[in-house]
């Protein structure tokens, strides 16, 4: 699937991985791309591991199955690393982005137990979230991180798109728009890789 960018999200129910995948789809849509954003529904319980997917392409996308060989993997909850093989099928040229306070080097070592030796990026979405939103919503910073790492779109366009999305999503509580934008922007800067 050379001309289709495929992203797999791993999170826990309630952390917003599905929402993040939909927001990413929207942002890419705003840049004129063809997109898919869809979750893989499982037990649908708070805390249960969930998977969500994105396909982004310049051409119409007809394929309708889950993603088994993603270009990028986003791990919204670090504790999933001991539960799910998040690197499964991840392409050699791709990368994994993990929400953790660990350094990319430390994370790389941990992932080597899955025989993964590709690029690893980390971002402390918890710290960003707590400092900007005052609550733990890791999906927003993770969205910024994946856009940066996967080079999904121009950063400026992405920021504009997110601003529009948040204005729509948080129309009834506009005070949270600026902190969410701050979280996205910080993640764009703070994500680190090796």
């Amino acid at each position, binding site marked *: 699937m050379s001309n289709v960018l495929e992203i797999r999200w791993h999170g826990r129910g309630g952390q917003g991985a599905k929402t993040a995948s939909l927001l990413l789809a929207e942002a890419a*849509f705003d840049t004129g791309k063809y997109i898919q954003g869809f979750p893989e529904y499982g037990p649908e319980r708070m805390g249960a591991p969930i998977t969500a997917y994105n396909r982004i392409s310049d051409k*119409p996308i007809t394929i309708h199955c889950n993603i088994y060989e993603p270009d990028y993997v986003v791990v919204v909850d670090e504790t999933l690393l001991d539960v799910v093989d998040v690197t499964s099928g991840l392409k050699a040229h791709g990368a994994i982005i993990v929400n953790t306070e660990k350094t990319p080097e430390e994370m790389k070592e941990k992932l080597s137990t899955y025989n993964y030796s590709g690029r690893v990026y980390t971002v402390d979405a918890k710290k960003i979230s707590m400092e900007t939103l005052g609550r733990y919503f890791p999906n927003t910073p993770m969205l910024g991180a994946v856009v940066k790492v996967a080079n999904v779109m121009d950063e400026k366009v992405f920021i504009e798109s997110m601003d529009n999305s948040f204005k729509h999503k948080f129309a009834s509580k506009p005070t949270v728009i600026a902190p969410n934008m701050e979280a996205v922007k910080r993640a764009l800067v703070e994500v680190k890789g090796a």
Partner: protein
Amino acid sequence: MAIRDKLSGNEAVAVAMRQINPDVVAAFPITPSTEVPQYFSSYVADGLVDTEFVAVESEHSAMSACIGAQAAGGRAMTATSSAGLALMWEMLYIAASSRLPMVMSLVTRALSGPINIHNDHSDAMGCRDSGWIQLFGENNQEAYDNFIMALRVGEHKDVQLPVLNCYDGFITSHSVENMELLEDNLVKDFVGEYKPQHYMLNSKQQIAVGPLDLPPHYFEHKRLQAEAMRNAKNVILEVSAEFEKMTGRKYGLFEEYRMEDAEIAMVILGSTAGTAKYVIDELREKGVKAGLIKIRVFRPFPAEELAAALSHCKAIAIMDKADGFNAKGGALFNEIRSAMYDGDARPAIVNYIYGLGGRDVRTNDLEKVYDALAEIVATGVVGDPYRYVGVIDANDVAVQAEAAAARE
């Protein structure tokens, strides 16, 4: 002209309903169709439509309320899935035999048991002989477009039958994709006003609907109903041609994908057709003459047209997303094999049951099917035509190897 948007299948259908502004929507929530009345009820609350929204206490009541509303002379709509459709069973036949052209979105889902909320076509196949027209969409765009066209088809004076707008649960209903919406006024003009010949709230002509119909008349009424389903085929083509003029999007009884010189072909319903197109493109690059027929109109069944379209193939796989439990293959398989009987061409035909209960249908599952068809062409041996793909089978060496790798 067209509005570029990104919506889930359910949201797209709810938007179509808002644009049509029906008289009555009566619905009971069931996964994965719940979002349709959920989105729509917010349009009602926001005053965007004039619809009477009836929050009923069961699907049987939802269908009953729609029957009453449609018989009264209104446009009625609903949505359901799986067990919800099963609970409507009795009323489905009444809607069809009373010739009430309502539209229902069937967000296809497995029937219990064991209980399962995910996609297959066992609900849609279960009601295939209830007298409803059945349209199947591959993606969000088709779910939206079919819904709009469904009204015109069902309400046509030569048809007067209810229409099921079928699309795949979760895969289509919950996936956000690009699509093109029509402007509200275009949809309104296209569907027009509903002008039934007879309706109960007509003060100038009192009528009775749903009579006791004893042996002197019942058979004739059913024969007339059968004729309406026969008429539906041409009406669908007419309405689709008109829709194409407006949108540029072409719809027929089925879609042929790279069939012109296809030696091996698959016949399928719903979202997996898109995945099959991807697989075909890859196979074509390797020189394999693979093609696909995606059925849009399952009821009325386009038997002659399908037989003609498949006649030049050497081997065909009919894909059923619901088992037949007759020990002789799924419904689509049996109908297509029957359709081929009248022709001189007798390609090898095999049946694959696939994707039950939300089992993801991967590209390599479909590759396996095409490989098997190529094998039949090469050897001339059909073997067992009643096959499964994607099921974990103790006797399937390749599947066992995959399973072992996954367990590691």
